[in-house]
């Protein structure tokens, strides 16, 4: 861990909110990305991100500096997302969700920047048929670009479980992409 971040962590542990604001600014988009792609609801995702940062603040003395701060924050956020998914019903895809995706997939200009509502549409469609764990592993691996070892730490799964969940998630999504005309 860099010295600068170590210093920030120490100040956070001493109750320095200004130091913690640096952490928030640095990682809020990262956590919102995960939460949005898990929950398919922007307001729920923002709630989870707030809750995750508050938990991190209160439990900063428990953070083990041998792992990356991003990993620890991802872990907290993942668990909150899974808790939410257990309690609330998954967002069902709307007709306009599928229409948007067909249009997006057919575009040759793949440089177009998506809006947050577009991510919501994507997750509503592609999360259908996935378990929460498959969705989490797929999101961390394919959408957040994390490697397997980090995913194991975040999810608490072993390598075989991560691989298995990723395999079935990809299989389901491949079938969906094919049905949507993406080849």
């Amino acid at each position, binding site marked *: 861990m860099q010295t600068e971040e170590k210093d920030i962590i120490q100040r956070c542990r001493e109750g320095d909110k200004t130091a913690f604001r640096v952490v928030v600014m640095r990682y809020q988009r990262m956590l919102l990305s995960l939460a949005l792609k898990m929950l398919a609801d922007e307001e729920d995702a923002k709630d989870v991100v707030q809750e995750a940062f508050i938990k991190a603040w209160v439990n900063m003395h428990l953070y083990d500096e041998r792992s990356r701060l991003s990993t620890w924050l991802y872990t907290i956020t993942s668990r909150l997302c899974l808790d939410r998914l257990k309690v609330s019903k998954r967002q069902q895809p709307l007709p306009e969700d599928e229409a948007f995706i067909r249009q997006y997939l057919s575009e040759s200009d793949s440089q177009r*920047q998506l809006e947050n509502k577009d991510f919501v549409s994507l997750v509503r469609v592609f999360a259908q048929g996935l378990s929460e764990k498959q969705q989490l592993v797929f999101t961390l691996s394919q959408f957040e670009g994390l490697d397997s070892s980090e995913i194991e730490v975040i999810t608490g799964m072993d390598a075989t479980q991560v691989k298995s969940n990723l395999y079935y998630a990809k299989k389901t999504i491949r079938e969906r992409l094919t049905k949507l005309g993406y080849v």
Partner: protein
Amino acid sequence: MYKVTLNRKEDKNDVDLDFMQLARVQRQNDTEAVVTEKRDLVDDFCQRMLRQQVKISDEEAFADEIISKLPDITPSVGKAETKKEQGRGISPIVIAIRVVSSVAAMLLIGLFVQMQTAETTSVAYLNESNARFVQMNSTDYNKCKTPHDFVLQLKKHKQAGIRLSEIKRIF
């Protein structure tokens, strides 16, 4: 998604095409489209998604809202809150029950000790030759007003054979 080499009279280049685009190119008479690689649909799709980022319309305001909700902590309070968060705190009811139980136990022990103490009393008396000690029930001992009473009590406690004349002093 397909990696395709497009061969034309004037040039040659490598492009990425989807199925519809490939089909269109293959219909062109002046172009030869050679597929060099077919990429996995999911990998291809995910590559596109990895280039995307979610947006926070006002990052400063979003962070400020989070900071405003943080509880004030000191290292010791933080730890206490954590214990509470983890459910290891002791509730007042539990504390009260423990105190009452301890007091009751102490009272019972005290009562028991008193009873034990009341049960027997070492009574010493001197006879001509030596002092002897006998165990006597305290209640009975307290009934003794005279040495004669004492002898009667001693007999009751199976200390027969003691004569009044033997008792010189009781203490």
